């Protein structure tokens, strides 16, 4: 950790007010060259506002910024970039319709810069296909692109907003090594994240924000532990009670039988003969690095994509050929990963969002508003949310929207609940609420399938765990049999998966 006499960036008394909300309130922050500085906080703690101010996208209402000791006004993205501040936003600042090269040119890279970009890519071992259209790149490729662009533009301060949110464990690890490397080169890295483990591994300093204020700072992170940081974030962390688990019942709730799909479009993954049974009262976790067929599996399980009838059974009803609505009637509920847009309609009210999936809410085509409001309030009350049913969904925070969505799906009393990283991008307390709700559902005899790239989430939930790799599914191991070694092998495709084993058996026979 290099301690420069003059800090690279020092922020004093920063304020930003949106209408009635104080997003940033007297924030003091000092960032030195050569350090990885973690910025932690729950949803709505003011991290995003701070990031936008640093990017030059939003102007603060008060306070001062000093860059290498000189007062500066970050009045546009250009100014920030010229100083050497580079921000990689969570939703990348890329034009999906243009190629990688065109995006770089748009960001102001000339031909010689492009050459340096290639050199940097080789040096850091971050390959990016230059002629591909950005919409065909994976999340991690887009991130590499953004990062390399910042490095090519000689960024001295890199602000990374939730950089590992969409990366698998192996990719995250590589990424964290890279962050250390950048710090060792004398750059400063500001890491914004929810993941405490990451902070402990990679950061030199951690600053915790809560409700727009700095509530804590830990400089000697070796001595600190996750609990201290979590306590600062939440204020008080309720003791996590491992729910007493009853063994799953033997009755199958969801059966995949040689479930296969063709790869659709040029960048999709084909699912290859997945066979697995999920029993009632069981939570099955499906792990894997992003882009190994998760989207395809969710589509085919939820009914967004149809297959042959017998390849998927709900209890003992063949349902592979049925669409979403028919599967809902049979008792399937779905919490998609895109909670705004796929999971809900943001421009509609909470009650209307309940109406979209609920049955028995209309009579002769007329909406039964009283009944609907009661149901909506029940869903909200389950998670201690107090918004009136007429609130627009778009006005809920990310964590609230996710709890509402999970609550809505649970209220349908499903036989099988399908959930795609249900606690992604929500704060600690909200994640706990959702995990508790899913465990409660399990205890009632519902089968739950959780598809996620976040191992913490899977370990908190699953009874058995299977790994998806290049469209093939490993056997589902009981959690007692899952160790890091086995998991890492399966996720990297080293262990023989069910499909391969079968293939070998066929070849041998």
């Amino acid at each position, binding site marked *: 950790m290099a301690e420069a006499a003059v800090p690279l960036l020092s922020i004093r008394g920063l304020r930003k007010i949106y209408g009635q909300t104080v997003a940033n309130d007297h924030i003091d922050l000092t960032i030195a060259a050569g350090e990885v500085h973690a910025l932690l906080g729950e949803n709505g703690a003011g991290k995003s506002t701070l990031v936008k101010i640093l990017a030059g996208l939003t102007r603060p209402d008060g306070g001062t910024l000093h860059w290498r000791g000189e007062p500066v006004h970050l009045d*546009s*993205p250009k100014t920030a*970039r010229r100083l050497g501040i580079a921000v990689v936003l969570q*939703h990348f600042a*890329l*034009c999906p*319709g*243009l190629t990688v090269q065109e995006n770089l040119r*748009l960001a102001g890279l000339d031909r010689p810069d492009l050459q340096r970009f290639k050199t940097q890519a080789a040096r850091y071992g971050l390959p990016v296909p230059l002629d591909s259209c950005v919409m065909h790149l994976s999340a991690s490729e887009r991130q590499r692109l953004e990062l390399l662009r910042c490095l090519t533009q000689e960024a001295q301060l890199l602000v990374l907003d939730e950089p590992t949110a969409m990366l698998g464990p192996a990719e995250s690890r590589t990424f964290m090594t890279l962050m250390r490397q950048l710090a060792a080169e004398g750059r400063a890295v500001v890491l914004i994240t929810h993941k405490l483990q990451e902070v402990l591994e990679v950061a030199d300093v951690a600053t915790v924000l809560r409700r727009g204020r700095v509530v804590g700072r830990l400089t000697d992170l070796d001595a600190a532990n996750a609990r201290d940081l979590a306590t600062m974030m939440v204020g008080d962390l309720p003791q996590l009670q491992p729910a007493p688990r009853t063994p799953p019942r033997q009755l199958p709730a969801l059966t995949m039988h040689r479930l296969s799909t063709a790869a659709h479009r040029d960048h999709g993954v084909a699912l290859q003969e997945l066979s697995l049974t999920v029993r009632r009262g069981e939570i099955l976790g499906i792990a894997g690095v992003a882009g190994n067929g998760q989207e395809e599996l969710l589509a085919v399980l939820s009914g967004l994509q149809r297959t042959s009838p017998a390849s998927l059974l709900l209890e003992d009803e063949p349902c592979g050929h049925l669409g979403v609505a028919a599967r809902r009637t049979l008792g399937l509920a779905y919490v998609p990963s895109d909670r705004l847009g796929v999971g809900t309609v943001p421009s509609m009210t909470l009650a209307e969002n309940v109406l979209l999936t609920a049955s028995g809410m209309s009579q002769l085509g007329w909406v039964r508003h009283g009944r609907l409001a009661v149901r909506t309030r029940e869903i909200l009350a389950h998670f201690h949310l107090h918004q009136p049913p007429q609130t627009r969904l778009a006005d809920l925070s990310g964590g609230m929207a996710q709890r509402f969505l999970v609550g809505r799906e649970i209220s349908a009393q499903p036989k099988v609940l399908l959930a795609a990283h249900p606690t992604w991008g929500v704060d600690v307390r909200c994640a706990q609420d959702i995990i508790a709700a899913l465990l409660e559902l399990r205890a009632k005899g519902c089968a739950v399938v959780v598809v996620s790239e976040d191992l913490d989430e899977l370990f908190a939930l699953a009874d058995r765990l299977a790994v998806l790799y290049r469209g093939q599914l490993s056997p589902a191991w009981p959690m007692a049999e899952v160790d890091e070694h086995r998991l890492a092998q399966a996720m990297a495709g080293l262990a023989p998966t069910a499909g391969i084993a079968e293939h070998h058996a066929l070849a041998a026979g």
Partner: protein
Amino acid sequence: MVLESALLDATARSATPLLLAGAGELVCERAGVLNLGLEGLMLMGAASGFVVASASGSMALGLATAAGAAAGLALLYGLLTIHAALNQVACGLGFVMLGAGLATVIGRDAPGQLPAGVSLGGIPWLERLPGVGHALFGQDVIAGFAVALVLIMALFWRSSKLGLWLHAAGDAPDAARAMGVPVRLVRLMAVAFGGAMSGLSGGYLSLIYTPMWQEGMTANRGWIALALVVFAGWRPVPLLLGAYLFGALGKAKEFAQALGLAISPYALDALPYLATIAVLAMLSRNRFGAPRALARPWPS
């Protein structure tokens, strides 16, 4: 040979207004702004261009006025839809009527026809080019200008900073802004350019094609130009081909006559409109190539 040349001339004359208005709308839509008001802007250009040209006796001044007046009206549209973030469909339809109304007022006392001798003429050298020479450069410079404009656009489309700015503003305005692209300015300029081209297209109709001023004389060519942009998949070269295809359809009567076919002239006159409907129906199934942020108020 004479017959072919005459047909080619006729096609170029009927394609040019479509090409001009289409090229303007293409730039405008690529930047993310849908301007449904083309028809109104064209009428505005037609009336103001005709009045100025007949009063001053200068064709060039007339055409410049046509482009300028429509660009001014388009700027107003831009301020309303980009800066005040009004609904682009409603606003665009409003501008069809506003443009038509203003054109009626402007052209109320217009003379029946242009004074004799008001003309741009061709380009002596280029008109002797074999094949398309006379069609593009022999009658008037505008036909050649329209083709050259679209070819230059194609050249700059994705290989110049300005071209990439257009794409970024229409595709991902948030990302573009984060990359330092002045999104609103790019959009406003694109809308103004679109307006100028529509106005020029209208001026071409009233000063060269017809030449006279009459209410509603654009005969829905603005709507055809809008369809052409979709037909072209928001790309310049297909726009050029499309405009000439539609231009040829517009001259179906002449073609039929030349070939000695006995088909009802009314049916032939309907061809471009039928083709527009067919193209729109076909392409609405596949929005490939459409700017992602087209017609969405921003910032949302």
